[in-house]
């Protein structure tokens, strides 16, 4: 099972879509809300070089935004 971290904000629709996608494919993930968690926010910026959410870390591969095709490739799901 890949190690997945998703950096989110509570009102972010693309974050919700990404989490829905993980649920549909029975993939577990760790969620970090970057509004209040400054350390998580710094991590996200360091990994992605930007401040937009969601940022998804799949075993070290960084996906910016809810890029379903890229996530499907990384997770090997269709």
């Amino acid at each position, binding site marked *: 099972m890949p190690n997945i971290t998703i950096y989110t904000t509570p009102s972010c629709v693309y974050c919700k879509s990404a989490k829905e996608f993980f649920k549909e494919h029975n993939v577990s993930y760790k969620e970090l809300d970057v509004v209040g968690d400054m350390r998580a926010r710094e991590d996200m910026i360091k990994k992605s*070089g930007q401040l937009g959410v969601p940022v998804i870390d799949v075993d070290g591969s960084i996906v910016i935004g809810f890029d379903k095709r890229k996530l499907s490739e990384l997770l090997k799901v269709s």
Partner: protein
Amino acid sequence: MIYDLIIIGSGAAGLAAALYAGRYKMTTLVIAGEFGGETATAGTIENYPAIASIDGYDFMKTMKDQALSLGVKLADGRVDSIQKEGSAFKLSTKEETFEGKTVILAFGSRRRHLNLPNEKELTGKGVHYCWTCDGPLYGGKTVAMVGGGDSSVKGVNFLGEYAQKIYLIAKGKEILAEPINLDQMKKLGDKVEVLTETEVTTIVGDKMLEKLVLSKSYQGSSDLKVDGLFIEIGFDPDTSLPKQLGLKLDEKNYIIVDNKMRTNVSRVFAAGDATNHFGSFKQDITAAAMGAVAATSAYEYKNQSKT
């Protein structure tokens, strides 16, 4: 298989059409690249009858679940080509080709950009389009919202919960928004400065956004230092598929439809923001109504073709 109906788009128009088509027992496929259309990113919805207040994403998810429960199928992808072949239409995404006897175009419209140098490079680095997503990251910061319509005012009201200062920058002489949203903005008091008849001419920043240059000086300077810039300047219709089908468009490139949401091409219907119906009044309720009418017209065609 050949579907009775293929709907392009999963916003309020597309999913309302799917709901009705499902109830009409039509075999129906919805193809959409991005779920939920503009509604999903619109923040809180408070002007849909019988629903006091609901998050846009949750609203669209309910519409989706309602359609899926009736047997409607959903496919991911952006339709790149559409061709009429005999009695069916062939619609292709990068991955797949689908066939349908009737089609509803409900793909909405494309978000406008300022088209300034640096805008693309600094996207996510101070420049944003989704205020519901990235607005909360500007707690205690200074931000600007560009746009003079209702969505930009809703955006300012949302940002008001987080930012310490918000500049609303509009090209026009006045802000055209629902009075209830304008009232809410007024309640933010000095936190909001409205700069009308003003445009952003330059986006300045290297690794992150540093400042904006304005067309009209504000407090003696055309430079405006901001941490974040949110762009909400409206939408333009996508003409690619309508042109492939030879649809008639109005002067602003919206699809011309009649009261039954029929286009000039038989068995092709359109609904929602992509059409000229209701003019510039583009709401969830009008989109959903158009979707319902379009599905009913497709159903009428199905029944007529049996006789």
